[in-house]
């Protein structure tokens, strides 16, 4: 499969995005996933618990070592086992939204969003001005001076997304971004998230086990089961021709 994906494109080259060949081994678990996502597109990785979905994101972020393969973003090599390149997480320009958001509890919302800008050396005033702009864009300016413990889950999700986007990443990784939310607010937050992801010019990879998330967010979907890709396509493809019993169950449950 990687042979086909690495072959020269027959027509115009796609706008450079994410090119990842991921081979990871941990004790008895092995993960093998090839990803090609154009900039501006949203890839959703669907799969049951323990399939290795989060490991894919952690590998792209540089928190997990590749056993073989490579990770390239916009043509830049972040990780390549064969040439021993390994960029640390901090220089990968990757935005990561965690399932439980991991907002820094000792910082206000605005300081959280300004964190990445400050870390890269932007002067305080400028960083906070930018952070304020992002909060405004997400409609959460009123929360600027609150602590993460003083805001709701849906608000925290927006802050986490704003914090990741403020650093202008090439790739945005979201690990179960809606799983921590109450059912009542999930639909609203999901619709909101879809809008923001559509505006994001880089590559987005979302991990979820919910078909509703995939339907709302995905340009393309891969299904990951036990470390292997069992189906690729759109949500419509999955619904039309489920390749495995897991996909079939998922589609049926959504009807």
């Amino acid at each position: 499969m990687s042979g086909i994906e690495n072959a020269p494109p027959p027509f115009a080259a796609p706008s450079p995005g994410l090119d990842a060949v991921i081979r990871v081994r941990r004790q008895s678990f092995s993960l093998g996933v090839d990803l090609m996502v154009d900039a501006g597109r949203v890839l959703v990785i669907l799969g049951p618990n323990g399939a290795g979905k989060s490991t894919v994101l952690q590998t792209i972020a540089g928190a997990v070592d590749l056993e073989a393969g490579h990770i390239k973003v916009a043509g830049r090599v972040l990780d390549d086992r064969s040439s021993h390149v390994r960029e640390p997480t901090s220089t990968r320009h990757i935005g990561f939204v965690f399932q439980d958001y991991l907002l820094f509890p000792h910082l206000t919302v605005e300081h959280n969003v300004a964190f990445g800008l400050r870390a890269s050396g932007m002067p305080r005033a400028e960083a906070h001005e930018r952070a304020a702009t992002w909060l405004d864009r997400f409609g959460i300016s009123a929360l600027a001076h609150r602590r993460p413990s003083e805001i709701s889950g849906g608000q925290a999700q927006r802050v986490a997304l704003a914090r990741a986007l403020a650093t202008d990443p090439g790739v945005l990784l979201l690990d179960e971004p809606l799983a921590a939310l109450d059912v009542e607010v999930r639909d609203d937050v999901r619709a909101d998230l879809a809008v923001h992801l559509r505006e994001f010019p880089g590559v987005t990879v979302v991990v979820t086990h919910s078909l509703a998330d995939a339907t709302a967010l995905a340009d393309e979907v891969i299904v990951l089961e036990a470390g292997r890709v069992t189906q690729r396509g759109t949500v419509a493809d999955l619904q039309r021709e489920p390749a495995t019993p897991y996909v079939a169950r998922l589609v049926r449950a959504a009807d």
Partner: protein
Amino acid sequence: MGPHDRQRRSIALALWIPAAIAVGLLVLPLVALIVRAPWAELTDIVARPEIFQALLLSLGTASLATAICVALGVPLAVVLTQAAEWPTAARRALRTAVTVPLVLPPVVGGVALLLLLGRRGLIGEFLNEAFGISIPFTPAAVIIAQVFVSMPFLVLAVEGALRASDRRFELAAASLGASPWYTFRRVTLPLIGPGVSAGALLSFTRSLGEFGATITFAGSFPGTTQTLPISTYLALQRDPDAAIALALVLLAVSVVVLVTLRDRWVPGVTQ
């Protein structure tokens, strides 16, 4: 009441008696101290020059020792938590070295410090010959003895805080472009702040109460090395009222620290 309840009650009784004796052992001595204290002359006694001097010396040395414990102990705790990647033998050796002062009789610590830094000590001889520096029986010796006995408290408290903290915050910071050093200063340190405060308070009380290592390594010179606990012990022979007053001062400091810890800092330390 069923037979089961009755059984439980007799077990409860069997536990209550030793428990009550334990409480008595812990609390009654302090009650005696408070009952027998010369309350009327308390302020006069503490204001006496030689006692006030000891008080100032104790507060000063214990504060400095605590500052040194924080400056050296926090990095050590961080290194210890990252030691997972080290060989097991090295990790065990380091861990043992850190905890030995906790179980070592303080007098032994004092003797060991003399053998290292004394005039004929391993390093002391060189310091004396090369620079004319002699550490024993100086305020510096008091501080070194205090650091020796109280550093483990700081290290263990901070290490506990580090282990309890969510290391994924560091991944979150790195994904935002923060260097490891920036992450340490802006994320890790603030998150373990309560652990550092708790460890510093424990180190301070341990330093303030230090007796054995201090009298062995630093002696008991009024004004330079005679700290509050030493002067309490010496006062007991010639002026019991002064000894009780000094003991009360030390007790008061301990209680303040305990209350502060319970109300404001990590629950893990006092609960």
